[in-house]
């Protein structure tokens, strides 16, 4: 009896499956898109359109055919650009995105978007209205890097780099390798959104500018932009940025330059590793932040002829380095107080460690921030001197 039922069910199931298959194939739509129907977007830029006051959205789209050609023949016909900056306008970002299809014919495919650049005018106006699309669209990834352009985002995206075929990938690469100098920092969409959601913390984003050297347009990183809530209020230059990164513990590598006051010359050190620890303390209603920094460096260059590989010289240089670091940190702190923007995240730290006191401090954070005292304790160790023990210089006579 069950066998008959089994057979009947088998036949019925196979009929149903057949019908379903026909349904799928005849209906013609099943959510797949051929790879050549995609416009692969690798970078997006948002500006203010001067004429209408709407948004000008620039999407950098890869031209796959050109990618292949330029690898082989090199140069050749046409302008050899492997990308195409297509623009669209609209009142909201999503509308502009769809307007772009008037020019491309295919929908934009933004899953491979690596950079999002906002023009400076938009940043000064406030980014809250423009960010939502980049977080909400299901194809967007939170690993996309956010940048602010010194002028217009469109110009930045038009600058064709020398060694890379695609400007957006070039920018992404530039930002990701911030560790070489630690003069700017990589901020992805998730971090930016996270800072936006905090009441106290100020978001930061790297600044990118275009230098016009004759025909070639090169891009360069020029510090960090500081936001208060979502409006850009100022900038941190390179040293200030590094000061910020010292406190956050995100310095990967860089150059510490110290000069010798009594003797002529400088010594340059490569930062090998840096760790930081911040302990917030509330003493009689006053907030003191204890910042402990431990760094390791190596002697990479010296301009004097003096032999610096001695323990006394090391101690002096370690102190000098610590002083340099402290100055960078204070520069950053002073700038942040000037802009009244808590870029360090001190408010968050207090919220986490002293949550009961935070409730009373939270509303007056702007005023309280001006009164925070920073207490630094910096220790630098010199680990190695690379290949030279003594500099290559003529021997001094023994006196």
């Amino acid at each position: 009896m069950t066998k008959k039922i089994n057979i009947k069910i088998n036949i019925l199931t196979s009929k149903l499956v057949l019908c379903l298959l026909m349904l799928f194939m005849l209906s013609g739509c099943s959510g797949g898109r051929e790879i050549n129907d995609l416009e692969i977007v690798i970078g997006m830029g948002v500006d203010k359109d001067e004429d209408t006051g709407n948004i000008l959205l620039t999407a950098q789209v890869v031209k796959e055919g050109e990618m292949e050609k330029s690898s082989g023949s090199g140069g050749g016909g046409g302008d050899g650009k492997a990308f195409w900056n297509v623009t669209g306008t609209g009142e909201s970002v999503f509308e502009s995105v769809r307007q772009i299809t008037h020019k491309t014919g295919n929908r934009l495919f933004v899953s491979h978007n690596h950079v999002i650049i906002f023009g400076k005018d938009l940043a000064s106006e406030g980014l809250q209205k423009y960010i939502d699309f980049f977080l909400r669209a299901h194809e967007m990834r939170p690993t996309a890097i956010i940048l602010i352009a010194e002028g217009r985002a469109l110009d930045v995206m038009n600058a064709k780099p020398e060694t890379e075929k695609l400007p957006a990938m070039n920018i992404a690469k530039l930002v990701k390798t911030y560790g070489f100098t630690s003069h700017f920092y990589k901020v992805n969409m998730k971090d930016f959104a996270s800072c936006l959601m905090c009441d106290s913390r100020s978001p930061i984003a790297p600044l990118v500018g275009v230098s016009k050297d004759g025909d070639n347009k090169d891009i360069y990183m020029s510090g960090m932009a500081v936001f208060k809530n979502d409006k850009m209020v100022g900038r941190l230059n390179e040293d200030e940025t590094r000061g910020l990164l010292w406190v956050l513990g995100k310095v990967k590598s860089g150059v510490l330059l110290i000069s010798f006051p009594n003797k002529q010359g400088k010594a340059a050190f490569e930062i090998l590793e840096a760790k930081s620890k911040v302990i917030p303390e509330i003493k009689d209603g006053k907030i003191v932040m204890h910042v402990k920094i431990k760094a390791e460096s190596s002697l990479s260059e010296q301009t004097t002829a003096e032999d610096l590989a001695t323990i006394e010289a090391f101690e002096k240089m370690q102190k000098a380095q610590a002083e340099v670091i402290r100055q960078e940190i204070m520069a950053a702190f002073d700038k942040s107080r000037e802009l009244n923007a808590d870029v360090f995240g001190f408010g968050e730290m207090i919220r986490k460690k002293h949550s009961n006191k935070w409730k009373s401090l939270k509303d007056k954070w702007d005023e309280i921030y001006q009164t925070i005292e920073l207490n630094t304790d910096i220790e630098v160790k010199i680990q190695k001197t690379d290949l030279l023990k003594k500099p290559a210089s003529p021997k001094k006579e023994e006196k």
Partner: protein
Amino acid sequence: MFRYISKVIRYLSLKNKNASQDTTTGKVNNEPISSDLKRNLEVIKGILRDSSDVTFHEFNFGHDRRFKGALIFINSLADKNEIHKNILQPLMYDVLLLKKDANMDFTKIDTVSKNLISITDTQKLVLASDLIDHLLAGATILLVDGAKEALAIKSQKVEHRGIEEPGTEAVVRGPREGFNENVNVSIALIRRKIKDPDLCIEKFNIGERSKTDVYIVYIKNVANPKLIEEIRERLDRIKIDAILESGYIEQFIEDAPYSIFPTVSNSEKPDKVVSKILEGRAAILVDGTPFALVVPMLFIESFQSGEDYYSRPFLASIMRLIRFLSYIISALGPAIYVALTVFHQELMPTQLLISIAAGRERVPFPAILEASLMIFTFDILREAGVRLPKAVGQTVGIVGALVLGQASVEAGLISPIMVIVVSSTAIASFAVPAQTDSGTILRYIYLALAGLAGGFGVIMGLLATLLHLASLRSFGTPYLWPIVPLNFSSLKDTFIRMPLWTMSKRPSAVVWDESDNYRQSPGLMPSPYKKDSGGSK
């Protein structure tokens, strides 16, 4: 209406007519042989009158040529030398060496066979049908006038291939002999490897017209008697005209005829079959084919090869993992490619996506059509390659490379990455020979699912395949054992091959007596010589 009724009536009458006919070759009634030689010869000549290679030789033998005898044999099958030397000569000449007054009564067939015939393989026959069967099987029939029985003497000369290396299962290390079309040679090869009195060889005769010899080979106290009983039952159930190859038997006794996965394994190599018999399985050997069947089959057996056990465990384990990976690639390769490039482009790194897109610029087909065309072409090529005569074999390689490769890409019909995907799929499909057919079919199914619903379809297909495999049984043992009914101790031999000295128990799914399951004593790990070995002191 009337046409329908007339059709029904005709159908019923035909059915009755067919039922009344004998379905066996019962042209010969089951009557005994008569004592009259002439009558016997007439009957046999009547039955076999259309075969011109049946030879009837009448002769007289005994002292004073008292007895009349006749030899019947099939010309093409009999070993004439044997007949002359060992049947006719003793009967006609050497009998004269016996004393005349011993007076042996040669109308009793027993006397003849015990005293005169110098061939060992003889059998007494009583029924005429038996006589015909033995005659057609190649025996020489001795009839004596006045005897109520006949003697069947097996004196065949059978032409068969020598023992050669099997074409389908080449190994680097291990014995290179393979089974033969002559089942006696095959059994001899097995007997040479197992010299145990518990080795049982049961004979069956299947096929109404072919009367093929089928043997079940197993070891008595190791194999499960219920398994053997089940095999016997299933073999008895087969009623067919002829068994031409073991594949016929496989298709009649398998557990899941509608499944694409085989539940009966086959092999040409005696060492492989013997090792399976030693684990408690039963082998089925069929005359006329070198492929022996072994039941029950587990899925992981398709990934094991004899070489794994003859070499050291490290490379063998890696090779086994590579085989698993190859199977997965061969079944899922095109499907994953289509799913990724059509549905889930966000899951590929950007550079790769750009390269693929660049390669697919000029291709006019959608990805799934391209993929299925390529796989189909590869299957055509493979099939043609098997059938081509050796002289033209080189052409296939060249044509294949040209058609499937360069020319198509240059013409813009397919993209270069598609060529890579299909070639790796194709090569990977040969790494696991036992599952080639299931791999080929699964490839098409997954490709269709990927084209319909992308990654989701592939996942659902994989789940359905897993459930199907988990519910299959091969003669009572679960097909995915030891992975699915999880058995840790037997996992030593699935994905990796642990050293031989760890595998001291037989796999518990196939044995009869689990308590007495040791096939080697535990603790056999080799170690260097412990005592002082002399040398320089």
